[in-house]
């Protein structure tokens, strides 16, 4: 039995990754998870300079899910390279750095600073719903997405994954724009722009008014969008959105995903990633599935 998957020439020991923003840069989870057993750690978004993020409250629970409006707080690429990356490199797992920016120049600044770094892939966040400039703006217009993807690809030393927003009319169009501009892979979905109101206080629950909805509540929509995207492009798709169990992850793989990422459920159970990875192995074993290629996109 072989759980390996390969994306743009990079081989992962299993298909389970962490969704950006839900796993910091791994350190906090090392008390709960053997990082050596993950397919990849996808870092929280890294910007060219430290970002303070949004005011609190930044998180709220919703039925089967949660809203967040962290606003991509991060210490910036210099500290990431000095502190967080060396920590992650102690482990036998792939490192994918999520890159965020307010402008094309800021994305390129981070991509350039990462060029000599020992990271396996870059994931470009063009889909964060919680920052005013950049972020989602690049991920909701196929022309803007094409421009960012093309420019990042020219500058990047590592293979490039474009992380797509579900807050679009046609995910297939966005997937094709990324592919045509040269992306090596796409990942989806980021969170849905959403809102919660405190009816006693007659106020928004989040200081940012809106936040991104994640968690099991969004999984069926995520599976549909991954299916559509995977059938619209030839490049690999990393599927995510509400994955809580190995069975959820297998749904995404059967929808056409090459790999999967676990997000909000890390906040429920810090060891969920390993349980998903072990569960996929058990599923394959019990059904005599030799490798994930034999079930990928089988529906």
């Amino acid at each position: 039995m072989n759980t390996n998957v390969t994306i743009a020439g990079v081989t992962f020991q299993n298909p389970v990754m962490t969704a950006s923003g839900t796993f910091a840069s791994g350190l906090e989870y090392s008390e709960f998870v053997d990082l050596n057993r993950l397919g990849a750690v996808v870092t929280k978004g890294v910007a060219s300079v430290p970002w303070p993020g949004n005011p609190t409250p930044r998180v709220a629970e919703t039925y089967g899910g949660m809203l967040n409006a962290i606003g991509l707080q991060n210490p910036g690429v210099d500290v990431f390279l000095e502190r967080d990356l060396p920590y992650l490199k102690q482990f036998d797992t792939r490192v994918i750095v999520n890159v965020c920016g307010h402008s094309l120049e800021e994305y390129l600044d981070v991509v350039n600073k990462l060029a000599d770094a020992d990271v396996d892939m870059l994931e470009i966040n063009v889909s964060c719903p919680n920052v005013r400039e950049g972020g989602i703006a690049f991920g909701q217009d196929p022309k803007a997405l094409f421009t960012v993807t093309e420019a990042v690809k020219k500058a990047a030393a590592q293979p490039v994954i474009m992380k797509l927003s579900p807050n679009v009319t046609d995910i297939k169009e966005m997937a094709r724009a990324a592919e045509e501009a040269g992306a090596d892979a796409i990942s989806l979905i980021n969170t849905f722009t959403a809102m919660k109101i405190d009816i006693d206080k007659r106020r928004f629950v989040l200081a940012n008014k809106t936040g991104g909805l994640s968690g099991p509540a969004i999984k069926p929509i995520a599976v549909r969008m991954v299916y559509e995207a995977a059938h619209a492009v030839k490049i690999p798709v990393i599927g995510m959105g509400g994955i809580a169990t190995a069975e959820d992850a297998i749904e995404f793989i059967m929808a056409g995903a090459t790999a999967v990422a676990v997000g909000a459920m890390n906040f429920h159970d810090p060891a969920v990633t390993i349980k998903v990875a072990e569960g996929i192995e058990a599923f394959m074993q019990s059904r005599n599935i030799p490798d994930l290629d034999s079930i990928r996109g089988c529906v």
Partner: protein
Amino acid sequence: MTKEMQTANVIRQECIADGIYSMWIATSIANTAVPGQFISVYINDASKLLPRPISICETGEDRLRIVYRIAGEGTRQLASYHSGDPVTILGPLGNGFPLSDEDAILIGGGIGIPPMLSLAKALTGKKEIVLGYRSELFLQDELASCGNVSVATEDGSSGTSGTVMDVLQTGTVSGKVIYACGPLPMLRAVKQYALDHNIPAWISMEERMACGIGACLGCVCASTEQDPHSLVFNKRVCKDGPVFNAKEVDLT
């Protein structure tokens, strides 16, 4: 890997004041917890994703006690658990209070009172304990066995009419270090009092949390200096706190 979620059992639970519940849980977490730390408590309901961060009120061998207020549907369900029921928890989390053997003033406001009990039991010096309530008292008898308790109630039904600050303003309470947990306006006033009297103050903060382990950055509070972890003026309440030196945090 040293920590994991564990399914523990409720030893017993009782309502100790209107909407305030006291639950003893059988768990080894008790043996490593220090005063001021908290646990994540999961609700036995898959629609509720996030754990409830609840301060540890006191500990015994292989058992700990939480005292919490019903704040919503999740804590309402928690309040229905009976002796023997499973309860999934994670911890201990957060940093805890630095212990001192000097004369101490402990200040608890409302649902900020419970962590003061384990702290009061751990502190070896003389203790002045100031407790603020809306109306109905709880834990005051247990705290009275650890030090000299003064009570303030907003409706004037017991002790000083008003808040803990009204007790402090009378000048009858003194000490060399302050420990406080309670609502933000109280912490703000305690910080000012500590600055005015040049006394170090350790305050326990509260914020909406998701992960509880320092990863999601949901529960940050403003810091007065640039934080070495975040490189911005933010600290994580769950990981860098919940206890902070009052001078470290910007409560304005």
